[in-house]
Every structure is written in structure tokens, then in C-alpha cells.
């Protein structure tokens, strides 16, 4: 039973990823695309967990934490670029 459930869950996650890719391509503004890319990263975490259940191995569970951290850093960098124009500021000139 669990195999069928995991296959259905993988199908749902990949369908969700297709919808988010549609939003990345079409999204009218840049923040739309960044939101969709962030959600794609979160979905990728879910797909990694499901695949590691299918393969019955716990060798890929570090990847989950890694993808989470990388998606967060990327989104923060994009948000700072959109708001301030630079990502890493030089020293304050006041």
C-alpha cells in the first residue's frame, strides 16, 4: 500500500512543480518568479524525501537540509537585490 501512496505523492509533487514552472515562465513581475522558484526549491525537498523512501536508503537525507539552506540564501539575496540594487553593500558612506 505504501508504494502506491508514495507514487501518488510523487505524481502530485511533480504536477505542483509543473504549475510552478508555468508561473516562473509567465509571471508578470520579477517577485512572482522569485516566489515560484522558492516554492520549487521547497517542492524539491519533498521529492528528495519521497525518492529516498522509494530507494529505501538514508544516503540522500543530507541533501534535504542542503537544498533548504540554498533556497533560503538565494531568496534572501534576490529580495535584497530587488530592494536595494546591491546584494553585499560596501561600507556606509554617510
Amino acid at each position: 500500500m505504501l508504494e502506491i501512496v508514495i507514487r501518488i505523492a510523487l505524481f502530485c509533487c511533480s504536477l505542483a512543480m509543473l504549475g510552478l514552472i508555468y508561473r516562473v515562465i509567465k509571471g508578470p513581475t520579477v517577485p512572482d518568479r522569485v516566489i515560484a522558484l522558492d516554492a520549487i526549491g521547497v517542492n524539491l525537498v519533498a521529492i528528495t524525501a519521497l525518492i529516498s523512501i522509494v530507494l529505501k536508503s538514508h544516503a540522500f537525507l543530507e541533501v534535504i537540509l542542503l537544498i533548504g539552506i540554498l533556497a533560503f540564501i538565494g531568496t534572501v539575496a534576490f529580495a535584497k537585490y530587488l530592494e536595494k540594487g546591491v546584494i553585499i553593500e560596501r561600507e556606509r558612506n554617510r
Partner: protein
Amino acid sequence: MNVSVIVDFLIGFLILAGALLCLIAAFGVIRLPDVYTRNHAASKAATLGVMFILLGTFIYFYAFEGHFNSRLILGIVFLFMTSPISGHLINRAAYNSGVKLWDKSVRDDLKKYNSNLMDKSSAD
């Protein structure tokens, strides 16, 4: 009905609920009208769905393989902390870079606050 069947049902429920929440989040991102409502869908539903799936994976490895994986717990905690923060940051960047709200939305308290701030600073 022994324990293994109950754990099986628990894992199946958690994984199915998480996958459906991810799908609902994607439908929200496709169908909602502007950036802010899309972020509302993506940063809440997808986070809860992925936390459900990771909890199901953790219970699977703990129950069937006897392997306590602390990285999954760390992943759940990390996603719970950072996903709303990244949603907030990207929404604030969208507002400050001038993305319009949906034309049927009725309140914009931040605009009023910003114009009050502008008046006060010009009066000083």
C-alpha cells in the same frame, strides 16, 4: 491489526496530506491574482506540506529501518523557521520596488503609513 499496519497508515496519511498541500499551493500560485496573494499561498501551504512529508519520512525510517535521522528533524525546524521569513522578505521587496496590488483589493495601510511618514519628514 498490529503496530506495523497502524504506522503504515500514519505514514501514508502524512505523505498524502503533504503532497496534496503542495499541489494546492501550486494551484494557488497559478490562479491567484497578484504577487501578495500568490506569496500567501506559496509560503504557507507549501511549507506545511513539506513538513508533513518530512515527518512521514522520519517516521518511516525510524519505524521500518530503526534509523533515527536527526537531519530530518533539523530540516523540519529549518524549513519552519526560514520559509515564512523568505516570503516576508520577497513580499517587502515587491512592495518597495513598486509592484501594484490587485485592483480589487480595498485596504493599503502601508501606503497611508508611508505618506504620513513623508509628510512628517517634509514638515521637519
